């Protein structure tokens, strides 16, 4: 290769240029379209891949050096936290249930993001985006590993975290985050970049990481705080990559705009639905509150996201059409989702509970328009029932949305007393949805979503029992068989926090750490 060696050492910018320009060639024995079969079928037109500008220009040697430094700090802190029984310094063992949701519902997504970026890091025709996606693929697997490592300490002491790899493929509510990523990684590479690189990383990750990690810090969890900070510096890079990708598509050809807009609308809505889990975590699962879900939404989505969409307006991008609805929904979703887990807590890998008086007052103050009117009466009734030994569990299976797979728990945007029902007919079958957003996603690509693995229907079809189970045997208990298939122990991993082994152990261990009896 002819390369002028004008200087002894190349600067970072030059090294990056050599890494991402001029290394590829036009193939002659094979057609380029056969070498890169995935980057045209979505209809995105790219005329000049060299116009790709990676704002970080990261090379492997620099990347390795930065990450190694962060890794050393992270593991030193995790070790110290473990050796000092740091888990006994958290506010309250209820907090650990947020970690259970995280390890079962979020960390596996980091791994799926790794797989997705590895895939697109192979299939873009241009070297620049390929290199950037490969770097991000390494980040993503690192995030999943560091999360698993720092939470494994809790797994030694608390129930429900013992089998997250198995649970993400089986447990009903985990099909919500799982189907989100399955949808993204089975799309083409450009849609994946909008789904994960833009909507998830740019528009929504802040809502996941910033409140969660502040929540961890507020509740005394140094382990999770540290992996959060360690990951957050990567996220800044990922967000910039997602934004660059979107600008690149829009600058390359005007025909790309309607396709990109449709993906932004779709993936913002899909992300909003998944984030309802985070809303519940913030408003109900952190014993020491950081801010309400509504407040977080206003700062990170409405203000920050709003500024982003203003920036994209010059390309013709408009604000996702779901924004009007989510602005109304933000006062409701966390209460509706916590109600759901409370009543289906018998089949969850974490504990649920009713808020205390003080916590209900906090919720009233944060949600003056909605909490006392729609949710406090329900919660008060449930607390009375629990006090009488009749803790409420819903014993029937719920109706699920074909797209987001969440039970139909969300109400009409303009009437919080009515469940929102939507349906479509496709090739003689009926399909049901929780919202206009989910229905529209289905209607655009029905062949994709007719394949949805809906946990409730799968249970009825008999696919959620261990192979040696006979559902026709006398006295067959389907709930027990499903829990067994999930690898959940009834009375230990599930149900109410009050009376749980976690609650008893935490009280006993903290007692030993602070008293001499």
């Amino acid at each position: 290769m002819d390369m002028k060696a004008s200087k002894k050492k190349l600067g970072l910018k030059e090294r990056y240029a050599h890494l991402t320009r001029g290394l590829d060639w036009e193939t002659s024995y094979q057609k380029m379209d056969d070498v890169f079969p995935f980057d045209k079928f979505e209809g995105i037109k790219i005329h000049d891949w060299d116009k790709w500008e990676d704002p970080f220009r990261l090379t492997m040697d620099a990347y390795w050096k930065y990450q190694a430094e962060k890794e050393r700090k992270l593991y030193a802190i995790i070790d110290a936290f473990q050796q000092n029984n740091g888990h006994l310094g958290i506010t309250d063992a209820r907090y650990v249930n947020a970690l259970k949701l995280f390890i079962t519902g979020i960390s596996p997504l980091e791994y799926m993001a790794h797989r997705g970026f590895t895939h697109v890091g192979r299939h873009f025709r241009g070297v620049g985006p390929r290199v950037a996606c490969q770097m991000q693929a390494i980040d993503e697997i690192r995030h999943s590993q560091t999360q698993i490592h720092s939470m494994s300490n809790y797994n030694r002491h608390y129930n429900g975290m013992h089998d997250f790899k198995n649970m993400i493929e089986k447990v009903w509510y985990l099909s919500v985050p799982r189907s989100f990523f399955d949808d993204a990684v089975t799309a083409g590479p450009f849609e994946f970049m909008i789904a994960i690189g833009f909507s998830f990383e740019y528009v929504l990750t802040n809502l996941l990481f910033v409140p969660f990690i502040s929540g961890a810090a507020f509740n005394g969890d140094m382990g999770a705080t540290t992996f959060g900070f360690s990951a957050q510096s990567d996220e800044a890079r990922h967000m910039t990559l997602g934004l660059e990708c979107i600008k690149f598509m829009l600058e390359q050809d005007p025909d790309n705009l309607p396709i990109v807009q449709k993906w932004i609308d779709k993936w913002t809505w899909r992300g909003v639905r998944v984030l309802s889990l985070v809303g519940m975590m913030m408003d109900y699962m952190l014993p020491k509150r950081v801010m309400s879900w509504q407040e977080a939404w206003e700062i990170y989505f409405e203000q920050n996201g709003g500024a982003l969409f203003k920036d994209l307006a010059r390309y013709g991008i408009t604000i996702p059409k779901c924004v009007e609805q989510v602005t109304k929904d933000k006062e409701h979703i966390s209460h509706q989702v916590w109600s759901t887990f409370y009543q289906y807590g018998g089949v969850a890998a974490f504990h649920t509970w009713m808020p205390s008086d003080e916590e209900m007052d906090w919720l009233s103050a944060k949600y003056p328009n909605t909490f006392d009117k729609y949710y406090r009466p329900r919660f008060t009734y449930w607390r009375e029932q629990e006090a009488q030994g009749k803790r409420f569990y819903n014993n029937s299976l719920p109706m699920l949305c074909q797209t987001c797979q969440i039970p139909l728990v969300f109400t009409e945007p303009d009437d919080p007393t009515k469940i929102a029902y939507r349906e479509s007919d496709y090739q003689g079958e009926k399909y049901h949805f929780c919202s206009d957003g989910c229905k529209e996603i289905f209607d655009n690509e029905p062949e994709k979503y007719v394949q949805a693995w809906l946990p409730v229907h799968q249970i009825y079809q008999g696919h959620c029992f261990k192979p040696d189970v006979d559902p026709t045997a006398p006295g067959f208990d389907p709930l027990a068989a499903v829990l067994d298939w999930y690898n959940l122990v009834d009375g230990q991993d599930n149900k109410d926090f009050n009376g749980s082994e976690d609650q008893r152990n935490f009280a006993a261990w903290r007692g030993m750490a602070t008293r001499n009896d």
Partner: protein
Amino acid sequence: MPVVALKPYQGEVKDRQENFHGNQLLYVGWEDHLMFCAPLCFMLPPDLRFGDLPEQILPGAYGAHPDWARVDWSEARWFRSGRPWQPDFDKTLAENGLGHKEVLRFQTPGLTGIAGSCS
């Protein structure tokens, strides 16, 4: 276009009626009673007498609600896919025209949930 894909394909419809062992799915929601967070999904034989639904099946599902004991079925209003609909209690689901994955709602006038909150 039914799917954006590399080449044409047909998705496997996971929830065809034949996958439910001779039964069909029926979704039921009780209006103004959001203590039950979502409509319920039942797997029922098509030859079930419709009246067995409110008389035999729903009490096990909704009986924990303080309003349940006050439900008067002669007053109840039914909706099928959101439109007013009148079931014949003595006919079967199939004879009532209910197919696989139909959604019914019922409203019980005068009952508006815990402390009138539609819970």
